[in-house]
């Protein structure tokens, strides 16, 4: 039976003379067709060895939430498209999660090649993966 996401992202950037807001002040409801969830805290290996993120029994990956739980300045986590064909450094690197709570939230495209991660120094990654 399908489920429902209730998501709220609210952000502010403040500079000396400029402020910018983004996201929403209300929760957004998103339907989930499947019912699968994969939730884990994983240890991300150091570069140059990238690893594919585990997906548990998720059949078709939908939304992904990631958060860097490590706090060291050198524990940034890098991530990007998976698959052997895109493993040439640095082309596979798309984003990064800064230490001490760096987050990412997006929906994977069904035609994507998966997700790889690596870190300059072993880091802990919280991941929640939801069935599309």
């Amino acid at each position, binding site marked *: *039976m*399908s*489920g*429902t*996401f*209730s*998501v*709220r*992202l*609210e*952000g*502010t*950037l*403040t*500079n*000396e003379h*400029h402020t*910018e807001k*983004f*996201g*929403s002040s209300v929760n*957004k409801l*998103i339907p*989930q067709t499947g*019912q699968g*969830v994969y*939730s884990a805290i994983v240890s991300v290996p150091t570069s140059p060895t990238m690893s594919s993120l585990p997906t548990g029994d998720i059949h078709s990956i939908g939304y992904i*939430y990631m*958060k860097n739980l490590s706090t060291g300045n050198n524990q940034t986590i*890098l991530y*990007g*498209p998976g698959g052997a064909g*895109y493993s040439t450094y*640095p*082309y596979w*690197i*798309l*984003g*990064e*999660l*800064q230490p*001490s*709570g*760096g*987050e*990412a*939230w*997006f*929906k*994977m*495209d*069904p*035609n*994507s*090649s998966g997700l790889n991660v690596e870190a300059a120094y072993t880091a802990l990654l919280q991941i*929640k993966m*939801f069935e599309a």
Partner: protein
Amino acid sequence: MAGSFSVKFNGTITSNLHSDSFGSPNPVAFTQAAQGFHGETVIVGTTEEIMPTGDVNTIGYLYLRNLDTGNFVSWGPTFEGVMLPFGRLDPTGGEAWLRRNSALSAELRWKADTAPCKVQMKLFEA
């Protein structure tokens, strides 16, 4: 002069017999090393386009939201001259929030599925 981000993200998923939550109870703070920002509502076409970056030099955080009510937008890095599908913005507010790797990542591209879509984008200097 450095700026500061304050981001609060909360989510829950509720199914018939299962629920889960994610995010942070309190806002997470990050610094912005240099001032820079590019924000616009882009009409993304059905042919691949390069995501604009304006005058942002070192790409940092990116926020996307699909304002179209009937069509999705695929996005991803450029690989060998074409888009490698990675993410999808669902219609009616589908969002993405991530920090780009400022030094290494390839440019991003996007493409609407069957008809052009308006997408709100906010790109911040790292």
